[in-house]
């Protein structure tokens, strides 16, 4: 089993504090690989076929075949929402099969570029040998948002994803046990706004969805040991200026990289 197939399954661990509910039985005809792929799509909200092909490590034709099967089983839906490859998202049945309490709606047009960027970033990370050996797993923005929504408000800034590195990984990674926040930055905000977001991410101590009193507790370790900013060339100077505005120690916890080339939402992708 290749890493791309296995890693998306790992976030399916039950949330602590919640009763372990019986998951609905998987529809007939689904393989173990399908489960992981469906979970990936559910967490990312919508994935373009070319990126899905990267995840599946299959050709475009095979990917279309698999997605067609999902469609026949009413697990997924597809549409050409943007230039490039069609988008795939899960229907209500698909989300129920995955045990995810999200709304079954197509990705909004205004979020397509962002979703693609985050998906590409996730895939780029998951391709690395250290990802699998470190046992890392991705906690998506959609999942964080679902937790926050249960608290009745969205006052917190949500990262575009969290990466959890278990502390008992056999790989012996130096950053084992850390939790990273991932931000995909496509467009330029003001440096002040970016600095404020960085500071919020770096100082937060509580999980998303906890009472406000537990968001920042003095003395507790920050929730995010590191913030990984993946930005477009246009946004890079602003992000770098924002990091420079932080205190030295905080700035050292912000990593800035360029988004991979596959993050581009443009005509011809995957064609």
């Amino acid at each position, binding site marked *: 089993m290749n890493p791309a197939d296995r890693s998306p399954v790992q976030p399916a661990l039950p949330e602590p504090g919640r009763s372990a509910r019986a998951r609905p039985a998987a529809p007939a005809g689904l393989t173990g690989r399908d489960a992981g792929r469906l979970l990936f799509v559910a967490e990312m909200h919508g994935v373009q076929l070319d990126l899905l092909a990267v995840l599946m490590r299959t050709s475009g034709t095979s990917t279309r075949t698999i997605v067609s099967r999902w469609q026949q089983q009413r697990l997924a839906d597809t549409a050409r929402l943007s230039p490039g490859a069609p988008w795939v998202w899960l229907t209500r049945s698909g989300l129920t099969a995955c045990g995810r309490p999200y709304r079954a709606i197509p990705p909004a047009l205004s979020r397509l570029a962002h979703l693609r960027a985050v998906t590409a970033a996730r895939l780029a990370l998951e391709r690395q040998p250290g990802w699998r050996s470190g046992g890392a797993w991705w906690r998506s923005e959609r999942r964080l948002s679902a937790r926050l929504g249960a608290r009745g408000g969205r006052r917190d800034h949500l990262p575009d994803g969290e990466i959890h590195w278990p502390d008992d990984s056999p790989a012996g990674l130096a950053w084992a046990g850390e939790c990273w926040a991932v931000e995909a930055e496509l467009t330029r905000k003001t440096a002040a706004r970016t600095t404020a977001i960085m500071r919020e991410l770096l100082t937060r101590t509580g999980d998303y969805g906890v009472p406000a009193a537990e968001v920042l507790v003095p003395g507790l370790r920050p929730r995010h040991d590191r913030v990984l900013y993946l930005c477009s060339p*246009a946004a890079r100077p602003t992000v770098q200026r924002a990091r420079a505005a932080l205190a030295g120690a905080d700035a050292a916890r912000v990593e800035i990289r360029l988004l991979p080339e596959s993050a581009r939402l443009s005509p011809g992708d995957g064609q």
Partner: protein
Amino acid sequence: MIRRYLAWRFAGWLLPAAWRLTKALVLAAVALAAAPATLVAAVAVTLAWRRGWPPTRLARAAAACAPMLAVWLAATAVAAGTLAALPAAPYRAWLDMWHAAAAGRPLLAAAVIAPLAIPAGLAAGALAWSRRIRAMESGSSGLSPASAVAFDRRQWRHQVATARARIAAPGSVPLIKGYGSVVAGAVIRTVNHRVGPVASLPYQRMRSHQVVIGATGTGKTTLLLRLWAGFMAAAQQRYAAGQGPRPLLVVLDCKGGADARRIADRARRVLREAGARSTAVWPDEARLSLWDLPPGPLTTTLLDLIEHGTGAAAYYTDVMEALVALAVEAPPGPPRSAQELRDRLDAGWLSLAYAGVGQPADLALIRSSARLLPDIALRYRALFRRLGAGLEGPGGFGDADAWYCILEGTSEPAVAEGQARALTDLLAFFATSGPDREILLAVDEFSAVARRLPIWGLYERARSLGLAVQVSAQSWPGLAGTEDERNRIAAAADGGLWLLRTPYPEPVTALAGQRKLTDTSRRLRRSRVWSEEGQGRTALAPVADPALIRSLDTGQVAYIYRGGVTYIQVKRLIGSPPALPPATAPAPPAAELHPATSAPADPPTASSDGTARSPITPPAWATRAAGPVWPLPSVRAAPSSPAWPPAPEQAPAQADHRPPGLTAFLDAAFGPEPAARPASQHAVTDAPTRADGARETEDSR
């Protein structure tokens, strides 16, 4: 004859007028001669009028100038080389002032006379302002009979504006001040109480019973939060200094509902900032164990939880009491859960339990009452189903610094009454047999449980338990079921009564008593001006004005204590999540601050009596409630540096803070960190486009 009469009438008008004119001229001359002092006095009186200050404040300001006066006199004596110059010094300064002013040097003139004019002017202003207030209070001044009322209303407005400005100023109203006094807010006005800018209560008064009455929306919760936080902060301070045991705040919110949850969250935040290391919210997040009570109190509590009838039902009550006592005090020991109690309320179980070890009378009772046991078991089954799992444990009041207990008194009053009864019994037992704690029991919306919770009984024995009780209600009738009980509760409130806006304050204001006041009546002339004739008499007026209390604004409260009243503008506590400590000051280890990481570390290692204090292990809920809910790894390497938070002087050389291999990992995934705009622009487009070709913006996310 007529001419003589007219002359006499004219003389009768002329002489007093001439006398008044002469007096005015003399006063004007004196004021002019002492122009600097007059100016200071005028400014002082104007300020006092505008800001609603009492005369005492001006007098204190004058007294505060005494050192300046003393220094000036000493300097004068040193300059003259003899003490004999001192008596004439004021006159010489006065002359010098005028000479300087005549020479066109006003600053020099002011500097010369300031040491003398400022204290004298302030003292004169205090005297004048005091006379003015007394005259208006007694009705002997003012242009019309309504002047006194208008003056009072105006002064109230000024005093309120000043108090509001004070609480708005950052840092002007701390939570506690010297010697642990709890500051409630800014003083608006006092009657028979000490005058001061802020209203502070000695800590010992917080250890006495108090009553809070205020309608919905008057700021009662804000006041209560402030009092609770003040108690917690002052008690923690005393505990840290080894002057007292640890505090324990227990709040019974008898209203319940979503509003209670919001207040609980707010209370947790303000109490955390006040020093409470853990606040348990019952029954949502924490539990208490009713079954920790010893058999005797447990039996009493279990019986009290069930409503009893009178008359013929009293027989049934007696039988039930005897059977419950048998079930609780059975040889295997007291029950440890509701299920176990229900199991014991069975003739077979009781017969087996007491077989061979029980008295014959017990066995006879079991046999004769066997047919009633299923009914009793059924009643307890229904009772514990309604009470929920909150009393099933595990947990005790000693597990946290503060307990916020939410009782659904609005939706389920019968349940709330039972819960309140059980909680107070548990607390009373904890106070008598648990570790030494300074306990404040606050019962909010007491009317919801007043029927079954004999709080006045707890009031009267609370002293010996080391327990202070604070009862709050929306109105006087809501304080208890009968007038007798209400009076008993209010009369036992030796820590004072807090009265917010309420439509019926008379019973409480009557407790403040009356004060003597000079009431003056004067005769009006035909020309609608006062004549010189009038009468004065001593009259009694209420210390706390009910009309004023009815018109209090939100956030204003009258604090009645020992025959006096202080009107206070309460300073709201903002329980926002505190910012992380600045990086320049290394934070203490998390284990010292929060039970989420380890057992709390008590500041002093010995109590006031010298005995060692044992650490308290946090219960599971405390860890859950205080720490991150999502399970971050339990043992994690320091994120970037050995000390946390990292010191700012550490160089921002990021590579130094990165774990080895991290840069390589990220570089492999995304390429090296861009130091400048990369030459190739094909990594990703600068402006991602949407399907319709418009520019994508983050705002749309």
